[in-house]
């Protein structure tokens, strides 16, 4: 039963994951944290951090991790395959028709209108982590959290490597809270 739920959730995430990367966060968050409660908000932020430090897209990383935490090894296999299937199928179709598809004004029109939606969804993922609905596993626990947040905003604006930022923040965490 849990296998079916994982399969269905990650098929949905794969199918509607337009924009890739961070744009998929809100979708994953909605399925994994809000709908099923497989992870808390804080655990979700942990996965994003782990995903930044390890190779591979966040969608696949989160599938493997969530699948394993809720249903063991086969859970991780099912979730990972499920999240890959829809984009794989759609891409194979698109590849066969790709020159025609690319110039199609309707496809272009739909894509233009989806762009702000995708940006809004990245915003929603951030908002849910900034101001969660419950206190369990929240990301901001004291003034230090907000200071680190502000420093990271400035650093990423200055194009500091995100992997380096994550490593530095881990060190800061150990110094402050350890």
């Amino acid at each position, binding site marked *: 039963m849990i296998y079916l739920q994982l399969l269905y959730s990650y098929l949905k995430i794969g*199918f*509607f*994951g*337009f924009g*890739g*990367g*961070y744009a998929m*966060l809100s979708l994953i968050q909605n399925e994994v944290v*809000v709908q099923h409660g497989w992870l808390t908000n804080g655990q979700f932020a*942990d996965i994003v*951090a782990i995903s*930044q*430090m*390890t*190779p*591979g*897209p966040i*969608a696949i*990383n989160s599938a*493997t991790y969530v699948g394993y*935490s809720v249903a063991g090894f086969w859970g*991780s296999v099912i979730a*990972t395959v499920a999240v*890959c299937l829809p*984009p*794989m199928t759609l*891409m194979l179709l698109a590849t066969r028709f*790709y020159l025609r598809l*690319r110039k199609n004004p*309707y496809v272009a*029109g*739909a894509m*233009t209108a*989806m762009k*702000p939606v*995708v*940006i*809004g969804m990245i*915003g*929603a993922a*951030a*908002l*849910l*982590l*900034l101001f969660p609905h419950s206190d369990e596993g929240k*990301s901001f626990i004291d003034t230090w*959290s907000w200071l*680190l947040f502000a420093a990271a*905003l400035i650093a990423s*604006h200055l194009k500091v490597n*995100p992997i380096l*930022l994550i490593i530095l923040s*881990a*060190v*800061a*965490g*150990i110094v*402050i*809270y*350890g």
Partner: protein
Amino acid sequence: MRGLFDIFITFFRIGIFTFGGGYAMIPLIEREVIDKKRWIEHQEFLELLTLAQSAPGPISLNTSVFVGYKLRGYAGAAAAISGVVIPSFSIILLIAIFFFDIRHNPTVDAAFKGMRPVVVALIIAPIVSLSRGIKPWGIVVAAAVAVAVWHFGVSPILLIACGAAAGLSWTLWKNRKKLKG
């Protein structure tokens, strides 16, 4: 000879080194697939990127499907996709198994307390760069979507579908006007 194993290994290498995912891997794909292997032309690669961005799913996955399929059909696509997915799958699986035990370690917990707010900042950063060149109505839509999903719990899937439908209707309406005028 563009062997299946060659395709697999090339994408395995891309899979191992795409830290951060997404756009970080584009230069790597360029080097492996265009400069070294000469599997596709540069112009074709640019067109492929647009396509990979419009399709749902991670860009690395979409790119590997395209290149693999072009080289060896369905078997090539399967070889490429396994190459991209297997490294990240194995690493995360190890972390998930290991992390379960060490998560309660006070030092690890302290490290993650430091990382969580920084992750939020990293999520916010691309919003600014993506919003460049977006018209004012786009900003309004983006803000409305953010609040709808975050505060009112509206399904992101529903909003994506609405966005696509709105774009289609707008194009239809524009084309009809053009035909009449």
